[in-house]
Structure formats: C-alpha cells, structure tokens
C-alpha cells in the first residue's frame, strides 16, 4: 500500500492559517467540496438539534402514562417528524454529504469532486426539503403523523396537507442523496491520484463506495413508492388502497426495499470513519485492511436482500420469512469481521484517549449492543413477539445513535482541526462524551425491557406498570439533550478562539493530513506524492519505502524539494 507526502508536509506550520475560507463563502453556492462538506455538517447539525428537540417533547409526553403534555395527534406528528429529520436530514446527509464531501477528494488526492455543481445542488436541496418538513406542523391538519414509515391506509386518511409535504420533502432529500451517490462513485473510481489503487485507498473510501451503491440501487424504489402514495393521497387512485383493489403490503415491500438499506447507508460511512479514527489514535495499523474493505461490499450486497424482515408480522408467507431470516442473520458475519478487526487494532496499541478516540470506543461498545439485538430480531419467532415494540425502539437507537451519532461525534472531534485549522477543547470534549454515554444508556437501555414486557411503540399513553421505567428513559433523554451543549460551545468557541492546529496534529498517515489545516483551494499546493500506506503506523518510514524502489526514489525527490 502506498500513500503520499507533499512538500508542505515537511513544514506544515508555514502554510497554516493561509487558507481560511471567508465566512461569506459558506452562504454561497460554492463548488468547493470542503465548503460544501462544512455546509452539510453545520446545516444537518442544526436539523439534528431540531429533531432532538422533538424527541425530547416525545419523551416528556411519555414521562407519565397519561396523555398530558401534547394532544394525541400532535404526539404522532412529533415522533414522525423526529424520525424523518434524524434519518433524512441528519445521519444520512451528515455521514455521506458532510464527511464524504469533505474527506473523499482529500483522501484520494483529488482537487475536488467529479461533479462540483451537482454536489452544490445536492446540498442546496437539503434546505428546502428540511424547511418543508418543519413547516408542515403549521398546515391545516398538522404534520404527517403516520410514522416515518408512512404506511397506507393510515397515511392516506390523516392530515393530507401534512402527508403531502412529508412526501415532497422526502422526495427532495432522496434526490439529493442520489446526486451525492453518483458523485461519490465517480470521484472514487475515476479521480484517484496516479499510483493509488483501490487497495491503497483509506477504508472510508471503500465504505463510501459501498454506501453509494446502496443509494443508487434503493432510493429510486422509495421515490416510486412515495409517488404512488401521493397519487393515492391526492388523486384518489388505489395503488395501496384495498378499497379499490390495491394492496397496502406492496407499499411495505417498496418502502423497506429502500429503508432497510438506508440503515447501511447511514452506518457504512460511520464504519469508514471509525476505521480511520482508531488506527491513528491507537498508533497501530488497521487490522485486516482487506477484510474490512470487502466486508463493506458484502454488507452492501446483503443489505439489499433483507428488507422483508421488517414485515414478519404483516404480509409475508412462512417460507419467505425463513429466507429473510437467514439472509438477515448472515449480515452479522461481515459486521462481526469489522468489529473484531477494530478490537484487534486497539489491542496492544498505544491508545491516545482523546475525545475522538473515546467516541470511537463508545461507538464499538454501543453498536455491538445494537448488533446483538439485531441478530435476535432477525429470528422470526422472537421478532413476532417484539416487532413494533420498545425493544425495536431500543435496538434501532443503539444502532443509529450509539452507532451512527457516536461515529459522527468521533468524526467531528477527529477532523475539526483539519476543517477549521483550530484544535477543540479536550475537557469539554470528554464532558460531552460522558454526558452522551450516560444519557444515551439511561434513555435507551431500559427500553429493551419495556418492549419485552409488552409496551408497543408509537403510543402516547401506556399501561401504568411501565411508568417508572419510562421515567428513567425520560430523564436519560433530558441528559442526552443537555449533552449537546458542551459540543456546541466547544465547536463555536474553538472555531473562533481555539489554538491553531498544525497540518497534522494527530500524526496521521492518510492523505488529508498531509496538507495544511485547513487545506488550500484544490487541496494540495503541488501534486501529492505517494510514499506511505494509510495505516503504516509503527513501521519506520525508510523500512516502509524499501518495499517499493519507486517509492524510495519518490521519497528522495521529496526530500530534495524540501531541503
């Protein structure tokens, strides 16, 4: 494996601070992938806060068994829009749009994405999509309240205006996602620097290829389902309406053909981020590079053939349930390969337990809980009991919060110096980690018990026997809400006043760290040169380059340039 060095790497300090993007640039239709990446990150984080506020409202309602905080209709809208925001406006665009855009060209030595204008357009579709969704609270009948799954016939009998805005919003966000997917695949396959083979790429690039394939394969099917649903809603057709000979189960198949892979669209980029963060801060090469890279592709493929496991209790015949059960369980194998490889990476290393690493380790712990409960609910007889209960709510939050959001947090702490040229405050970062970790587990761990005992999901009122446990969950959710403040304060303060970051404060080997912080327009002042693998920690640089005479020669050239 080979990677690069650039002349400026030798004296990164001389370049620091010279490439700060003027703040106005972030409010323009910029085609610079770094500006777009940061635009994505900031905007999706704002949506995350809105989605989190809705979640806090949901949990406040659930603090008591009675309906006493919001009306039943508003309650249904709150969790529907909460889930939609978190999925379509936070985790998917933050994982792919923000980190994908910012990192991919830098990691492969490209000047920008393959289609910069398409990239900017994809970002600028996020904002109207999000605004439509939030404005739907104020239309007649209120926001959509049929759950983020929007199953007909319920979705066609509620608030028509709210549901239509929900459909429009998700269609816009899905289109944006497809635009991003096309761009990532083209960029990664066609714009790698000379000499960088696929097996020389950082693992985040592999993860983005796998996630982009899923986006391109599955998102159009969701668009199809939603267009047909909108016809049922406003034109009186009966694609999914049994009254007219339609079939509501067909919608479920089409919806989950996208929405199950969407879980992997969310988690694969995070797997990639974790595979970058761990070796840097453990000071060891990633263990099993190829196993991790190819397991991403395996997850991508398997992710496409498991959608009906969301429908075990609805309209799937017995034999089909068996197929989807086995296919779903098999995903545990490539996922297990990743988890064990990460553990082998940290084992025996020299761990720097900074905020990025804490969130990286927290990610593994929490994601494993979500993964193990995932294997359980793949089992049809057990899933029949817990489907549509709080056990599922717990499982999905362990995967999507304990997994995706912990990963995104780790990514923010790890790449903040690169993005802004400033270091973040470690004390606030650790406080953020502790509050998040405690709040998250307090909020979601007891939900497993609630679901097993008999509490269904999406209810505003519940049996009083569940009151105490629900109160614990609600307290956890408040702690989780509070936990975002150290991050917000840290990010704003550090961006303005934080200590200057060098080009490579973590002494990392991937390419984005071999240019200044923040990087110049078009990323590298001179053509980058390959000289080391992305994870060759612990290997003496000369020993490393001895493996390839050409690399040795290139190194000599670089040294001559610098000297």
């Amino acid at each position, binding site marked *: 494996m080979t990677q690069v060095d650039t002349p400026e790497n030798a004296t990164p300090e001389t370049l620091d601070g010279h490439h700060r993007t003027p703040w106005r640039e972030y409010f323009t239709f910029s085609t610079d992938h770094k500006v777009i990446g940061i635009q994505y990150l900031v905007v999706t984080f704002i949506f995350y806060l809105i989605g989190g506020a809705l979640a806090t409202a949901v949990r406040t309602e659930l603090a008591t068994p009675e309906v006493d905080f919001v009306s*039943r*209709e508003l309650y249904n809208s709150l969790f529907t829009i909460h889930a939609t925001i978190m999925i379509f406006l936070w985790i998917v665009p933050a994982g792919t749009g923000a980190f994908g855009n910012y990192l991919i060209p830098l990691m492969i030595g490209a000047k920008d994405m393959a289609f910069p204008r398409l990239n900017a357009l994809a970002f600028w579709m996020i904002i109207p999509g999000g605004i439509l969704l939030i404005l739907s609270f104020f239309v007649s009948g209120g926001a959509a*309240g049929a*759950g983020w799954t929007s*199953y007909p*016939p*319920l979705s066609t*009998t509620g608030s028509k205006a709210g549901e239509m805005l929900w459909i429009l919003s998700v269609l816009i966000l899905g289109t944006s996602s497809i635009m991003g997917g096309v761009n990532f695949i083209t960029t990664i396959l066609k714009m790698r620097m000379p000499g960088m083979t696929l097996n020389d790429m950082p693992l985040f690039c592999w993860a983005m290829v796998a996630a982009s394939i899923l986006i391109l394969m599955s998102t159009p099917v969701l668009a199809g389902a939603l267009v047909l649903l909108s016809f049922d809603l406003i034109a009186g057709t009966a694609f999914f309406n*049994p*009254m007219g000979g339609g079939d*509501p189960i067909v919608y479920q198949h089409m919806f989950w053909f996208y929405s199950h892979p969407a879980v992997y669209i969310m988690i694969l980029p995070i797997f990639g981020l974790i595979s970058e963060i761990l070796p840097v801060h453990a000071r*060891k090469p990633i*263990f*099993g590079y*190829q*196993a991790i890279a190819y397991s991403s592709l395996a997850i991508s493929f398997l992710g496409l053939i498991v959608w009906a496991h969301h429908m075990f209790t*609805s*309209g*799937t*015949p*017995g*034999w089909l*349930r*068996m197929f989807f*059960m086995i296919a779903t*369980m098999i995903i*545990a*194998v490539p996922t*297990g*390969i990743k988890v064990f490889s990460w*553990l*082998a990476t*940290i*084992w*025996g290393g*020299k*761990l720097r337990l900074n905020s990025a690493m804490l969130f990286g380790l927290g990610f*593994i*712990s929490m994601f*494993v*809980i979500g993964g*193990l409960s995932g*294997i359980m609910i793949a089992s*049809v*007889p057990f899933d*029949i*009991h817990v*489907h549509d209960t709080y056990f599922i709510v717990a499982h999905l939050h362990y995967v999507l919060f304990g997994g995706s959001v912990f990963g995104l947090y780790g990514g923010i702490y790890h790449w903040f110096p690169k993005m802004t040229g400033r270091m973040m405050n470690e004390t606030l970062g650790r406080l953020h980690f502790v509050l998040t970790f405690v709040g998250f587990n307090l909020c979601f761990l007891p939900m*497993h*018990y609630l679901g*097993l*005992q*008999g509490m*269904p*999901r*999406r209810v505003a009122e*519940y049996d009083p026997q569940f009151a105490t446990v629900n109160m614990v969950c609600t307290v956890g959710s408040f702690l989780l809400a509070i936990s975002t403040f150290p991050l917000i304060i840290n990010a704003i303060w550090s961006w303005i006043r934080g200590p200057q970051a060098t080009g490579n404060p973590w002494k990392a080997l991937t390419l984005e760290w071999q240019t200044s912080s923040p990087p110049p327009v078009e990323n590298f002042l001179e053509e980058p040169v390959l000289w080391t693998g992305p994870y060759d*920690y*612990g*290997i003496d640089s000369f020993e490393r380059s001895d493996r390839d005479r050409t690399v040795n020669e290139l190194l000599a050239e670089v040294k001559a340039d610098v000297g």
Partner: protein
Amino acid sequence: MNIPSSIVTMLAGIILTIVSYWFGQHNGLMPQAASEEAPWVDGLFNTMMTIATGLFLLVQGIIIISVFKYRRRPGDETDGPPIEGNIPLEILWTAIPATIVLGLGIYSFEVYNSMGGLDPMASHDPKTMHAEVRHSGAAIAAPLPGATETPEASDAEQVALGVGASPGTQGRDADVSVNVLGLQFAWIFTYPDSGVTSGELHLPAGKEAKLTIAASDVIHALWIPQFRLKQDAIPGRDTELRFVPKDVGTYPVVCAELCGAYHGGMKAQVVVEEPEVFEAWLQSQIAAQQSGDDRAIALNTDSLSEAEYLQPYADEIGVNAQGLGQLHPPQAEGSHKIHHHI
C-alpha cells in the same frame, strides 16, 4: 507460550461462559408464558441472550482492558507494533459468527415450524378476500375486486397469512374459532359458531384456538405479549393466528401497529378460563344477545357518529367519554363502518 497467561485466559473464558449462561437462563426479562408456544420462544430468547451476553462481555472486556493496559504513557511518542493482519485469526472470527448464526437459524426454524409458522394453509396469499370495508351509506358490504366467493362460502377453505396449525394439528379444525376485527380504536371478537360478539376475547385453556384477523380501516396488529404472538390485521385480506392458551388468567391484547390518534388506547383483554367456565360464558352471551340485550352490534350504524358507535365498547377498550367525544365526526367519504358476517 507462558503457562500463567494461558491459565488466566482459560479462567476468564470459563467465568465468561458461566456468567453468560447464568444471565441468559435467568434474565427474567420476558413476561409470564401463558401459551403452549411461549416457552419455545422463551427458550430461543434465552439461548440468544446467553450468546449475546458472552459476546458483549468479550467485546467490552477487550475494550476496557485495552483502555487501561494499552493507554499511552505520558511522554511516549512511539507507535504500537505494526501488526496488519493474521489470516488464521480472521478465518476464526469469520467462522465463529457464521456457525452461531447458522445454529440460531436452524433453532429459529424449528421453533417457528413447531408454532405452525410453516403451515401451508396459513402461508399463502389468499386469493379470496373478505369484504370487511364499505363506504358509509352503502347498503351491503360489497366484495372487493377479485373476490370470487362470498365470505360465508370461502370460510371453509380460508387460507391466510400468519401462524397456522402446528405440524401435529395441520389439516384439523381448531377447537375454537374466533373472528377478530380491528377497527379504530377497538378489537371486536366474534364467535362464528355461536354468533356471540364481544369486546373481550374469551378462550378455553388447553384448547387450540384459531383467530381469523381482519381490519376495517387501517392496519392494526394483534399482540398478546403473554402468548408471544403478534399478527397484523390488514384491510382487504385476512390473517390467522393458531395457538393453545395454557394458563388460566387475564392478559392484555395490545394493538402494536400505529393506527391513528388513539393507537395507545386500543386495548382489550384475553380471558383464558377452564373449558367449562368458557362454555358457561359463551352460553350466557348467547342468552344475553337473544334476550335483546344485544349491544355489541348496532344494526343501523350508518346513522351513528363514530363516538356514538363506540360508546358501548367504551368500558371494554378503556377509552373514556371525553376521549370518545374527541373523535372526528364521520366524513362523507372514508368513514368506515363494519359489516359482520355472523
């Protein structure tokens, strides 16, 4: 290899196994198992909990040991050892999860088959569909397009999605048949053999029951946590659940699929009683309905608002008068009433 290290590893493995097994088998997370099928599901769950606990402790153990043992010492700027891979180790941790999921797959298949999940009668998409839905004002329930038989005629050869007869009882009729109708926001249970309709599901203990589940408006899901059984009620097609309630008692019937504003209040009860008590209950219901105390079915439901229509069920479904008053008035289109074919 030095021996003390091997012993420590072995001891850790033994302790891990004992703790996992103990927690897996004594987790106490499931509610009472009140059907004959429930202990099978619990056995599967306990096995999965044992494995999950073991893997969880293994992963957390590695992370915690790493955090303490391999933490960077102040002033140490060197890197860790450059270990990039280990093929036998990678094969091992690919093979172990693969074996585990294969085993769990076979175990799950066995449990599911024993429960009746693979009963061919319950595993086919029905070609005939009951007409449970009609528009407000329609004179009679009209068969949906594609329906070739009247509901009465198709009952005998009803095929449905869901959990059917266990392998031992396939081809035989269940001891008790109940038609279940989910509507916003109540469950209505009808005993087709006797014509009894109730807001409460009564079943004889130890006898095989078959529920034929339909929905009148949106998708609902009938869940009886103590039986470990759940099945969606889908408008336009019938689904089925067959099981044997075991323990006498009263258990909740929960709607698990989001069905609208009062989803959380859509509750009923299943009363499992000795067969003779059940028979007495059935006779008392028949007598009550024959004596004109038939409040279960309003004959002319079209003229009633949903609140008025639901009033008789208010006590049973746990919705108070205030809640009923908040129901939307019937709309010109799409106000769904039910037609019982008893």
